[in-house]
């Protein structure tokens, strides 16, 4: 059975927390992941951290990807992590991307974000990061 489980695609959620409506990046990432064989649950724009976390838990995803171009990432990304924790999904890794200044990247990583991507990141880079995060998550949860 173990061999069969490996073949099941990873499930990830791509969400846009906060108020900006620029979803080109999020959609690009969703499509790129789909093309790599991921099952991508897309929540659309302007979601609260609680909505994203509740959806991620309900859908039992292996990773959450957040996109923010509003500048509120320092508040929104950690908020999603906190909401995941309160909903029993603290084990689900969170990755983030968007217009994020260099000095904020370290702060986000410290806050528990697994990886941070800025505009111009090669698709290969974030695909690898999602694959790694999902692999680690599914190993840890023993599924």
């Amino acid at each position: 059975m173990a061999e069969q489980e490996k073949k099941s695609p990873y499930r990830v959620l791509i969400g846009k927390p906060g108020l900006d409506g620029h979803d080109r990046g999020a959609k690009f990432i969703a499509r790129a992941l789909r093309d790599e064989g991921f099952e991508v649950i897309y929540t659309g724009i302007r979601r609260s951290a609680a909505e994203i976390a509740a959806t991620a838990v309900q859908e039992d995803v292996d990773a959450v990807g957040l996109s923010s171009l509003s500048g509120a990432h320092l508040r929104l990304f950690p908020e999603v992590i906190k909401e995941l924790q309160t909903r029993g999904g603290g084990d689900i890794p969170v990755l983030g991307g968007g217009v994020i200044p260099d000095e904020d990247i370290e702060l986000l990583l410290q806050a528990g974000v697994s990886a941070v991507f800025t505009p111009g990141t090669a698709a290969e880079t974030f695909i690898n990061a999602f694959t790694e995060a999902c692999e680690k998550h599914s190993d840890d949860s023993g599924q």
Partner: protein
Amino acid sequence: MTAGSNELLAGLARQDPRAIGRAISAVENNSEAAADILSSLDQDVIDSVLVLGITGPPGAGKSTLTSAMIRALRKKGNRLGIIAVDPSSPISGGAILGDRIRMMEHALDPDVVVRSMATRGRLGGLCASAGATVRIMAAAGCEIIIIETVGVGQSEMDIIRLADITLMVLAPGFGDDIQAMKAGLLEVADFLVVNKSDLAGADALCMDMEQVFHDKQEEDGIARVLQTIASLNQGIEQLLATVKTFGLHLETSGIKEERRHMALDAETLDWIMEILRPRFAQAMSEKTERKDPRIRAKELIKELVTRQEE
């Protein structure tokens, strides 16, 4: 029974969202916990739920209608399960599951359990996964379960057979698409919902469909062609009331039980294919032959059966 399965079952009984999600993943991925979970579910609870199927061409408004139905049913206090099916890419195997976009208003409602599911390009298997998901949702207290799927393709047709009642959603302006679908899908649909009924062409579409459903309508006097404007919440109450009447009719006439039996048979067959496929693939790879495929298939089956008996 492993500790993990016990934990998941306890979680299902508590209606814990994390446990529900994990239990569904277990059956979808055919993991070891799946058998434990499925064999422990209460059959009476499963029998008591109502399963609605919503299908139709892309863009007809299935997700919007589903969301509007959720809104109305939640007002009545029903706990709901939603299985939203989207196709997997046949090339990469990946999928974008976007039905949630139109259901996000219910994201924080603990009594709306949503699961997005990809078809995973399997010939068999989808029906089995969705069927098991219905039972898990029932165990987690969902009273009405809605399966939403695009009405094209064989696996989508199969999955809709899991439903007690099937609603086909159309909208004006699809023209030839609808013509092409008539033979296959309209036959399995109990209701035809003409959504976006404020658009031009809605009346003509309704008249057209009334003809298709004329015989069914005559039989029990229940209207089968209904109009909605899901985005404006119009026609939803009427739709639900009619579906409810029809549900009672199915129950008293024994048709619901009959349909459940058929669905279980279809699912069982699906599992047989799912379990046998890898074994035959293995047997096939051990011996490359240039025989006629039909003859080769029969030989392989015979071989596997004898091997089993030894």
